[in-house]
């Protein structure tokens, strides 16, 4: 299997590390009451048969985190992009 790194092109699977579900948005809430949002972010993940978006890191290459759209039934990769920021983040 090969993964198309947006920087490095098609590279073999063993240069990459899997990083989990990329469909989740990291909560920005900063209160105890937001616990359920955090539980959802950390623990509640879909396991679709079909297209899924997931994080991978090109650890044996440019070390970029990328987001891949992969069909879990046949491992066909339809899209690979640099991982976009998952939230607006904190103060600068």
């Amino acid at each position, binding site marked *: *299997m090969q993964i198309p790194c947006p920087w490095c092109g098609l590279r073999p699977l063993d240069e990459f590390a899997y990083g989990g579900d990329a469909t989740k948005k990291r909560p920005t809430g900063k209160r105890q009451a937001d*616990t359920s949002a955090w539980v959802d972010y950390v623990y509640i993940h879909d396991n679709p048969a079909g297209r899924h978006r997931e994080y991978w890191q090109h650890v044996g290459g440019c070390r970029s985190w990328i987001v891949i759209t992969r069909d879990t039934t046949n491992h066909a990769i339809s899209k690979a992009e640099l991982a976009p920021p998952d939230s607006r983040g904190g103060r600068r």
Partner: protein
Amino acid sequence: MSGQSNRLPSGGLIDRTRVISFTFDGRTYSGHPGDTLASALIASGIHLVGRSFKYHRPRGIYSSGSEEPSALVTLGEGGRTEPNIPATMVEIFDGLVARSQNRWPSLSFDLMAVNSLLKPFFPAGFYYKTFMWPRSFWYRLYEPAIRRAAGLGTVAELPDPDSYEHAHAHCDVLIVGAGPAGLMAAQAAARAGARVVLADERAVAGGHLAGESIEIDGRQCADWAQDLYAELSELENVRLLPRTSVFGRYDGLTFGAIERVSDHIGADTPNLPRQRRWTIQAKQLICAAGAIERPLVFEGNDRPGVMLARAARNYLNQYGALPGRNVVVAANNDDAYLTARDFVDAGADVTVIDGRPQEIVTGSALLADGVDVRFEQCIAQARGKMHVSSVRLASVDGTGESEIGLPCDLVCVSGGWNPTIHLLSHCGGRPRWNERIASFTMGKLENDVQAVGGAAGTFDLQKSLHEGVAAGVSAAKACGAKPSRTVTAPSVDKLPSYGVQALWRALDSVSKSGAAFVDFQNDVTVADLEVAEREGFGHSEHAKRYTTLGMATDQGKLANVNAIGILSELLGTPIAETGTTTYRPLYTPAALGTLAGQRQGHEFRATRHSAMHAWHEKNGAVFTDAGLWLRPYYYPREGEDFAAAVKREVLNVRSAVGMVDVSTLGKIELKGPDAGTFLDRLYINSFSKMKVGRARYGVMLREDGMVFDDGTVTRLAEDHYFVTVTTANASPVMQHMEFCHQVHWPELDVQFCSVSEAWAAMAVAGPKARDTLERIVQGIDLSNEAFPLQSVANAKIGDAFVRVFRISFSGELAYELYTPANCGLGVWEAIMEAGAQDGISAYGTEAMTVMRTEKGHVAGPELDGRTTADDLSLGRMMSERKDYIGRWLAARSGLVGEGRIQLVGIKPVNVGDRFRMGAHLVNAPGAIGPDVSHGHVTTSVYSPACDHFIGLALLKNGRNRIGERIFVASPLHQEIVEVEVTHPVFVDERGERMRG
């Protein structure tokens, strides 16, 4: 030496001018270059080559390819012994040693053949039903006895002296199979400019053409194939891989293949690997893997002398070896008439038994008048003991009289052809029943995959050649090539059409289905399938598991489709509903050595040495694995055991000074105006306000609130930090930081880099550590006032740059020194020399563990991914004034409060007692069970300072239970030790030594 009594005087692809001698079961035989072990044995008149798996029935050579189920031999001697190799795939060389298998005392007189007489008592499922009780007997008695009686060859118990390697290839078009379609595809794709890899498992190109007597473009087809192959070998954009079995397809057109590099040369090949495992990455696949002939199923169809029809003419045409002179050809298709014709031409007496009605048969036109051809008949039984001597015939529909005793010495069978679709279905494609050819072909293929020739169910040679050209051109075009020179397929003699009509088994009522074999290698018969169907395991996936059909080393290449046909008859369902089994890699068996390649012994994985490794070795260190690192475990001196050495090392640090190599710590440098903010968000404590020149212990959590890692964070300049992380987490922490920066907080202006390999590191600890270092460290005042705990400064030792940190893991006055890796050994030796008068000695990781345990410092066993900072008494560090990874989930209700396990110390009530890591903490000595555990021992060491065992433990509500007496239980070892719960710090509770 035995003569080659069955060798024809001319013809074939062998070199009769040279003679090769080899041994089989200790007897010497001869053959010629170009021979396989099987062809040389046939030429020498040998048919009996093995005994069957379960019933020890005599077995011969059944095929001429990798599908061979019966002629399995053991090759080589000593560590080179390799069992279960098909004799059909072994090229002979001078000195080849081969032995038959699964027989005792000899192949022709095998005592275990008594199993064959007991066969009525061994139906499918027999072992499972019979040897059930008493249960304990299964492992002790039944299974070992059954295993001795059944089986194939025996593996070598010596190390394999041969070498193996892994290689990678990239290409536009991978073509699997160098038969007629594959050769044409390769020529077309290569001439169009595509980068081509052409792999074929056999030594000789041409596929079945190597063993046919057919004219292509007016020449013998074998010559045509050799010439085309030679032409391809001249092309720069073609890589030919003969003797290479493409064993599996993996996601995205990645293929695994094994090349037999020097198996055919023998042992004298010091500069060649025995085999090479290829990983081939292609953009297009053309599967031209051909087809495999099906056996016919009748009583005694496994007798030596019964052989696949095309295999028989392969031996005749390719090797000039005549497997029989009195030949019965039994078939249900026209291809077998080529076998009949070639044997008639070779002077044999031939009778053809065709299951089909005469009006649809076209092949008989190949035969001269006077050849006996009988239609709508089949073989009901083959007779003979060690070799077939006659066959009994019956009508195909099971009605009418059967004819007794047609004498013969060779039975050529053809039940039709199964396309070799394995590679096409490895990635999930499902085979479809194809009525036209009475076998399975693939449904729709992916865009970048094509099948041609026999693999596509095309059994017409002319059409196969055309398909090859078309596929080669279109695959090349798909890769961006622009074909300029056109390739056209050559023309072929008109051959009979295929005309197959399924014939799954002889239905004659007299013959015994218990001796009609479907799977030769696993000894599965029609009777076994009948039992499976009767007991409700009739679906092909069930029957396979119930009977073991298709589960031998040949993976049912000959058996599976016949079994599905027979099951469909038994069930009365159409074949399409009977199901197929799933094809999985490996297509052909692989030696474990080839899969391992170079990764054996020390080369199994990388080994990392610190810069001071040579010193450790010279000074007698015993090493321990820490991930890929080799770390000094302890340094025994003359007469010391482990315990004595560790005790001495610890006491030396506590009383004088010691030094330990900590180079394996992960090290990360961070720069940029937001570096402090970045660290604040990663760690539970704050670093943005820490003064320059200070170092502080830090803890980071995962998003779920559990402790991830700990280490030291140092501020070297306003915008420059240096972080150490634990050895085991060096890589995961770096990945985590990169994720946080790239995904969560890309707006932060910070850059960071792993510098783990750039620095050698060592800790100098003990009351005399300052005395030692003051002698050689230049550029800083090491006095307590000028350089207190948690200070950091740059200095020099000799010419070497060193970064000196005053931090302590041992609890003593201690310094960590970091120096560029190439200075590590020099600095280490300089410190050793400077500390000699203070009694300095090196200490290993075990002494380090003892001292950190005495101080109650947590490490890997406590940071097990299930503990929170508060569990480890680090809760006070968790900042309330900032946000950080894991903050909110660490505060969820399940992770706080009295029910949590908390870090405590334990010591034995009876000072002589010891306890184990991993043992459970219980309230009463007799308590055993899943609900009684209150926690477990994480670390257990002998403490020289206390002079008894001490431990760290995670105990439910532990901080409120200091002083309680509980029990450490290890039921596995039948150990119960009474212990007292203590504060986790055993030495210098107030920390005065490290501040001194």
